[in-house]
């Protein structure tokens, strides 16, 4: 049972998966409540382009890709200001273009194709000390920002317009949040890969939402569920010999299905009890 723990790479990967799971779960609450799930999926693709460009230009991966992701988020916001263009269409245009740019650069310079498999599908066992340090820094900053901005973020997420009338700087809140989201996706790339990040951002908050009606409880639950999925997913992947990213996603999907079934049954039995009471 403790066999995997004798490998340093496994421990490092496990810590990374737990932190990334919790971080995505935390940030995901705001994404899901503002019905922006698609932006998580889109931005991870955009950031892939940023990662390749950073590599080609020999810029630090974390800084280059984060800046690229943030810039993409700003361009999406700017594009969606046109009344004729809905936000989801803007996301589709900007992020896919960015992803295509990454692919174009890779196919042009075929020599480094192999390096980007990790960015696409995640390679948790290849997590370096530097990757882990970046994950820890982004996690700390995100937790502090979400605690400090708790009231502002809640008001903005629930009722953006009235928050603005009350003097909440909603524009700055959105910009700050885009920065944190971009950084979160960049540090999660190594663990989950472009193609799998969306589920880490969406599933834990949805599971938490099914279990609670309170915003505060949803944030705490979602972070815990995200961490647990990361931890259990990677531990399982060692035994069943399946890629870690895929195992984490499948594990959280299984958890979602169980909670979904449980809450549906619970609601049904509540309804039955209520109708029994009203018949009495």
């Amino acid at each position, binding site marked *: 049972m403790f066999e995997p723990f004798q490998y340093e790479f496994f421990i490092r990967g496990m810590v990374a998966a737990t932190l990334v799971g919790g971080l995505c779960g935390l940030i995901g609450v705001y994404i899901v409540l503002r019905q922006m799930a698609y932006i998580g999926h889109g931005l991870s693709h955009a950031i892939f382009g940023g990662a390749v460009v950073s590599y080609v230009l020999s810029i630090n991966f974390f800084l280059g890709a984060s800046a690229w992701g943030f810039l993409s988020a700003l361009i999406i916001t700017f594009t969606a200001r046109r009344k004729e263009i809905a936000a989801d269409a803007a996301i589709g245009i900007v992020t896919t273009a960015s992803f295509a740019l990454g692919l174009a650069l890779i196919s042009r310079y075929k020599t480094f194709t192999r390096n980007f498999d990790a960015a696409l599908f995640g390679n948790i066992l290849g997590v370096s000390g530097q990757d882990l340090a970046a994950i820890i820094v982004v996690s700390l900053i995100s937790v502090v920002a979400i605690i400090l901005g708790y*009231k502002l973020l809640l008001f903005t997420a629930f009722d953006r317009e009235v928050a603005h009338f009350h003097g909440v700087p909603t524009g700055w809140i959105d910009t700050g949040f885009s920065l944190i989201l971009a950084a979160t996706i960049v540090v999660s790339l190594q663990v989950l890969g472009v193609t799998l990040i969306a589920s880490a951002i969406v599933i834990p908050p949805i599971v938490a939402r099914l279990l609670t*009606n309170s915003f505060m409880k949803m944030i705490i639950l979602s972070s815990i569920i995200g961490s647990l999925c990361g931890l259990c997913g990677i531990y399982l992947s060692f035994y069943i010999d399946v890629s870690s990213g895929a195992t984490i996603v499948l594990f959280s999907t299984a958890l979602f299905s169980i909670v979904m079934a449980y809450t549906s049954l619970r609601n049904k039995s509540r309804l039955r009890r209520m109708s029994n009471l009203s018949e009495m």
Partner: protein
Amino acid sequence: MLHPTPHEQNQGIPIIEIQALSCGYGNQPVLSNVTLDIYRGDFVGFLGPSGSGKTTLLRAILGATNIYSGEILIDQIPISAKRPRIGYVPQLETIDWNFPVTVEEVVLMGRTMDNIIFPWYSAADKEITYEILHRLGIYNLRKRHIQELSGGQQQRVFLARALVSNPSLLLLDEPTTGVDIKTRDEVMHLLHDLNHQGITILLTTHEINAVAAHLPTVICMNNAIIAKGSPANVFTPENFLKTYGAELLVIQHQGMTLVAESPHLDNNKERL
């Protein structure tokens, strides 16, 4: 009696001064050359067809439109210079009722900007929140999710959120649209009570007989102000023709002004 008597109006310096205001969204003008004074203690209803600029006028006062010319002053300070303290109650249909928040969490939002140094709500925030919840009779519902409430209770929650920041001015966007008759009367009673306590209230409405006729002041709008005054003075066929582009029948009955809200009077006449 359906509604308490209107509050005595105080004249003097207006709480809101709108001077030759033209405003809209982007490059699309909605209101042109609106001049209007609202006094402390006023209770005003804005009437007009959809797209007539009722809501836009409220939003202009809140600083949420593009102002092309003219000015809005609140307590003699231009709104562009200082954000005024206004309680705003949005239309209930704009609310995401599935959002995971309790009654108490929603009402506390109204205190967000009162202490921004601490990320949590202060004891004073909670005290005033509980006081308002008591005043509006929803204190015992404070732990409930917002979806588990009746229409009248939901309206009270958002009224409470507007009131916790201690505003002297309250704006409501169609507070009686989409609610049942009982809720509508409940809300109007509550607003009359608040007005009696000295709060200046502005609201928009589509309901001429049920809402506007019971207010001390009504303003008919159609991208500009058509008429302002007491319902008895404003409710005339000429004013309604200018406001709605349709002839509405006005009936005086036992001191009440009733309006037959039938848009096809001409056709009916022909059939008769």
